[in-house]
Structure formats: structure tokens, C-alpha cells
């Protein structure tokens, strides 16, 4: 599904990703943990095609496509989804309208028919129910004036609507109180599917109490320095990130 080999990327003069390897199979949930500034968001952005990063070597294969060759929207249409660490506000752009346009752009690229307003509303209602969300966010402009928790919930809702094959959740847990965290985690669990892989990026072990990963990776100084099962997360919790610098150095 996703195969990352020896990925190196610069921001300006600085090399941020320093030879990152990662293999994600269908239906797997991978957690990537690491201290602040270790390159987690950079990795997520490089995968989804954000400008401003220069990939100097390595490769990323996604479902047989050379991901790095594609535009961000092409990646999205292939089924890649990034839940942003800092979701972006779009003043004046209605949330429902935005989602409908996005979903139909994706459907169209796959040769599927566009959903009309009625079918779209039906789908939206159904997904809201699955996620135990109410429809209060739908009439508002995308993320505009949303609280931190509302923004994160909205990201999960978008994910539910766009049905990605690979979802990257970038610190979707940060800044959430325990109730909000639970809503988000329940949503993610509801969307687990044998055909859907997930990369859950987090700074804290806490989220993994709710979302049980198949694999846990430790990212430090731009590469994965340890991989293991979910017990690795608990180990990190106990020892903190202090020891990592020694390993990564």
C-alpha cells in the first residue's frame, strides 16, 4: 500500500527528513511517535505533496504510483488523506459545499458519477451518525471560528466522507480534552476498515489508549529509529523521549 524508502527532504538549507523508511500494508494502523521538531509533520506534508519541501533522495510508492511525482489533488484523488495538525480556515466557504465539491472532484477523477444534493445529504447524515457527531458544524464556513476540538472533529468527519485508502492523522489528539479525544478516537475506530490504512502521528501515548495501533514507530531527527508493537508506546510513556537523543545522535 505505502512504501517509503530512504526518504530525505530539506526545508531550505536544513535536512529535516534524514533517510526515513516505512512500510504500511492494507488495513494496518501505524503510530508514529516522536518529540516535537522530530519531523513528523514534515513527513506528513511530504506525503501529501505540500510545496516548500525539497525531496533530495528516496522514494514513495503508493498503490503502485510514484507518489512524489503527483500533485496534491492527484494524491487525494488516489485516496490519500491528511488530517491536519492545524486545520486551515476558509472564511465564507460553507463546510457542506466544500465537502461536496471535494467528494465530487474525487469521484469524478475515478469515473464515478457526481453525487446530487439529495444523495450527498443522505451520505452526510449517515456518516454523522456513525461518528456520533451533530450537524452543527456543517452550516458554518470551513473551520472558521471553530474551537480546537471542533476543527479536529471536522477533520475526522471529512475523512469519513472522503473514504481515503490511507489516512494520515497529524497530532489529531493534541490540544483536546479527554471528552473531545474520545469523540475523535471513536470516530477513527469507526472508520477502521480492512481496506483502509492509517498513520496516526502523535506526541503522546494517550491517544493510543483509545486507538490501538498494529505497529508503533519512533521518529527522531528525521528518521525512524525504532519500530515495534503497541508495547513500544508504553515504553515511551515510561521513559519519555530523553533517551531518544542518545540513540538518534
Amino acid at each position: 500500500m505505502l512504501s517509503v524508502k530512504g526518504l530525505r527532504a530539506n526545508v531550505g538549507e536544513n535536512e529535516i527528513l534524514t533517510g526515513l523508511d516505512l512500510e504500511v500494508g492494507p488495513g494496518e494502523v501505524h503510530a508514529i511517535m516522536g518529540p516535537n521538531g522530530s519531523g513528523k509533520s514534515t513527513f506528513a506534508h511530504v506525503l501529501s505533496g505540500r510545496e516548500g519541501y525539497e525531496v533530495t533522495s528516496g522514494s514513495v510508492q503508493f498503490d503502485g504510483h510514484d507518489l512524489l511525482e503527483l500533485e496534491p489533488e492527484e494524491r487525494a484523488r488516489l485516496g490519500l488523506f491528511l488530517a491536519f495538525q492545524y486545520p486551515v480556515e476558509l472564511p465564507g466557504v460553507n463546510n457542506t459545499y466544500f465537502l461536496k465539491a471535494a467528494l465530487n472532484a474525487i469521484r469524478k477523477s475515478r469515473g464515478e458519477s457526481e453525487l446530487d444534493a439529495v444523495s450527498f445529504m443522505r451520505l452526510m447524515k449517515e456518516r454523522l451518525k456513525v461518528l456520533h457527531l451533530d450537524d452543527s458544524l456543517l452550516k458554518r464556513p470551513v473551520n472558521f471560528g471553530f474551537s480546537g476540538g471542533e476543527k479536529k472533529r471536522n477533520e475526522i468527519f471529512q475523512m469519513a466522507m472522503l473514504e481515503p485508502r490511507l489516512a494520515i492523522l497529524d497530532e489529531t489528539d493534541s490540544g483536546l480534552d479527554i471528552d473531545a479525544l474520545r469523540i475523535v478516537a471513536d470516530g477513527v475506530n469507526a472508520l477502521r476498515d480492512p481496506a483502509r490504512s492509517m498513520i496516526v502521528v502523535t506526541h503522546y501515548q494517550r491517544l493510543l489508549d483509545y486507538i490501538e495501533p498494529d505497529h508503533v514507530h519512533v521518529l527522531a531527527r528525521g528518521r525512524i529509529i525504532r519500530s515495534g508493537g503497541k508495547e513500544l508506546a508504553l515504553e515511551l510513556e515510561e521513559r519519555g523521549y530523553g533517551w531518544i537523543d542518545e540513540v538518534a545522535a
Partner: protein
Amino acid sequence: MSASTADLPTSTPAATAASQYDAIVRSGYEHGFVTEIESDTLPPGLDEGVIRAISARKGEPAFMTDWRLAAYRKWLQMPTPAWASVHHPPIDYQAISYFSAPKKKDGPKSLDEVDPVLLETYRKLGIPIEEQKALAGVAVDAVFDSVSVATTFREKLAEVGVIFCSISEALQEHPELVRQYLGSVVPATDNYYAGLNSAVFTDGTFVYVPKHTRCPMELSTYFRINTANTGQFERTLIIAEEGSYVSYLEGCTAPQRDENQLHAAVVELIALEGAEIKYSTVQNWYPGDEHGRGGIYNFVTKRGDCRGARSKISWTQVETGSAITWKYPSCILRGDDSVGEFYSVAVTKGRQQADTGTKMIHLGKNTRSTIVSKGISAQHGQQSYRGLVRIAAKAEGARNHTQCDSLLIGDKCAANTFPYIEVKNPTAKMEHEATTSKISDDQLFYCRSRGLAEEDAVSMIVNGFCKEVFNELPMEFAVEAQKLLSISLEGAVG
């Protein structure tokens, strides 16, 4: 709007563009094509003989000929307006032909009588008359090459006493009304272009809504400039009697061409006691090529007079076309408790220049005005908002709210804001907000990461930015305006 606009202070630009996009692309002018219809055209040039010829061909009453000649004589003495923010080569007024009429003289009674070439033109524009007729509530007075050739729904309007016709017809059938009101809001001496228009206007629209009558449909005129070298001098006069209501839609597109074309329209609105006039414009004239060659020069004088107490005039405009736009739809709030509104979206890209805004002149007590201006600049577009709010000494309790937002796309465009406020009564309440924003990389990436093409993302963000204004437009018009905005911004980001 008046020549005095040029006297407004030219403060340093409140905001200039700067951003990271530099790959600038062009989008073709979708409505650029020329219809082949034979025209009965006067040779280029302007003198008293030409003015007499225009008046004679239209069979106008003598007062009208005299009025035109008086306007012409005053115009000859007026200096060409000089203003801060738009630039164009001098206009040769002797190179313009001042009259052009389609060959078929008598107005058609139905679409069957309309020249098929013309119908085809509307079809290409995506505003077929058939469809408009079907859209219940929209009457069409299509102005083509200065002379109305299709008028519909007249009977239905006549039933309630609403007069909706070309100004030429009004001069034949209701000369007393024209005589009473023409020039009463925008006198011939008001400014250079209004003076020229008063001398040579060839057609336009006349609307009269009787007392306590709600006009049963949106009135709509589609303007279109067609014959090469024909300046357009439209004259619109709308009178809403006591307690009446009318909504008027004006839209225009033009075929692509080489020469600069001057357009100097005058629109006068008169709202008597308790009357309301809503005037909406979607303007999409040819903006010129990427060097700005060949576009329309749009110098328009639009003014509404809230003559009676509790009257209301509301201007809504979406301006995407023209090489140069110079217009300040204004309200004179004469009646006590009268209300003036101005909602505007203006787009400048390529080499387009727009100097636009409004004037709200508060004369009566407890008069209120609202100004919402949304300016979008892309590529090398230059845009200035110029707004004057004047509260006269006797305008006790007057209020104004101004919201002036600019959106920049790319780093070579510019937006300037020149708010100008004159308050002579201490009870006035004034609010002014202004913002400048850019479409951020973050926003574009966010949209693209959801599968949207960059252009769709831009048009979505832009439409969101303009929402407050679009909300003021009648439904069908709002849809059209959004489409137009998307088309006009295609390729503006890259």
C-alpha cells in the same frame, strides 16, 4: 461619480500586493465573438449637426434636442477629468461613431421576429432569451447596438401600470415624465462623461412604477456593445413613486475587438416617499488582451436620489470586465429616514484598472447608509476603492457603516483604499472597517489535499469572500455572478 471625485485625497496606498505566486497565466475571454448584423451607423465625429441628426433619427420632441445641444455646449467647455489611479491614452472623441442601429427598424412583437443572428449571440452568451422568458419573473429589454430590439412581458407590467421601455420610446409616449425627471439627479454639467452622455445618448431604459405598486417581476436589461467603434451612451431613468418597489438587473458582455471602446452611461434613480429601488449590475465587458489592449473603457455615472422620506436605494454590482472602470454608484439621502446601500465586488486582473466606490450624501434626518466593498486583484490588476460619506449639518442622527475588504492573488497586483469622510453634524455615527488579505498557500494546499483543483479552490475562496455581496443579488443573478467570477479568475493563480 462627479468630477469632484478626482479631488478626493490621494493618500498613500493602504495596501499593496506581495505574495509568492508569480507564474501568471491568461484565460481567454469566453464571450469574445462578434455578431454579424448590418448596422445603420453614423460616420465618426461629433458636432452640433451630429447631435441634431441623432435627435432627428429618433424623432425626439424639440425640448430633447435643445437639452442635448445645451449639454454639448457645456461639455465643450469642460476639462477632461484627471484622477489619480487610472491611466489610458487620450480618447479621440472625433473617432467615435455616435449612432448605430440594427437594420430592422420596428421592434419585434415576439422572438420569431428577432434576427436569428442576435438570438444566436445570446445563446453563445449563455443567457438565451427563451430561457429568460421561461424564468418567471424576469422581463427582458435587450439592448443591442444602442437600440432595443426585444422587449417582453410588457403587457403583464402594463396591467399594474408599470412602464418599462426604452428611453426613446418613453420620449415618444411619456415625454412629460422624461422631461420632469431626466437630468434631475445627474445634471448634464455634473461631470465630463455625464455631459457627453447627455449630448449624445442613443438609448437606454426607462422605468416608471406608480404609487403603491410592487413591480411584479425583476426587470432586466442585457447590454451588449457590438458594432466596431461605436461608443455606447446609455441613459437609464428609473422612477419609483410613493410606496412602490422595483428591482432592476443590468448585465452586459461584449465581443472581443481591437479598438478601445468608450462607454459612458448615465443612470438616474428617483425614489419618492417610502419607495424602494434595488439596482443590480453584473458587468463583464471585454477587458483587453494581456497587455490591456482593446478593452472597454467604462466611465459610468450612476446616482440615486432618495427624494422622499423612508425611501431606499440599494446598488449591488459585480464588476469583472472592462479595461478601465470608473464608477461610483451613489445615493443622495434627501428624505428623512431614507436608506442607501452599496454592495460591490470588483475584480481586476491582467492589466485591468478599476477606480470604483460610492458616495453617500446624508441630507435628511436619521438617514442610514451601508457600504460593503469587496475588491479582488490578480496578476497586474490595479484597484482603488474611493468612498465618500458626507453628513450634512442638518442630517441629525445619520449613520454609516463601511466595510471595505481587499483580496490579493499574486504579488504584482495592488489594492488601494481611499475612504473620505465629511461630518458636519456631531450626532453622526460612523463605522469603518477595512481588511486586506491574500489567498494563502495554506488555504490552497488544504483545498488541494481534499482533491480540489487549484482553480476550483481559488474560485471557492473568492466566492466565499464575496458572499455578503452575492447574497444581495437576486437568485439567478447570483449564480451568474459566481460563474462569471470563476471564469474571470481562471488561470489567475499558478
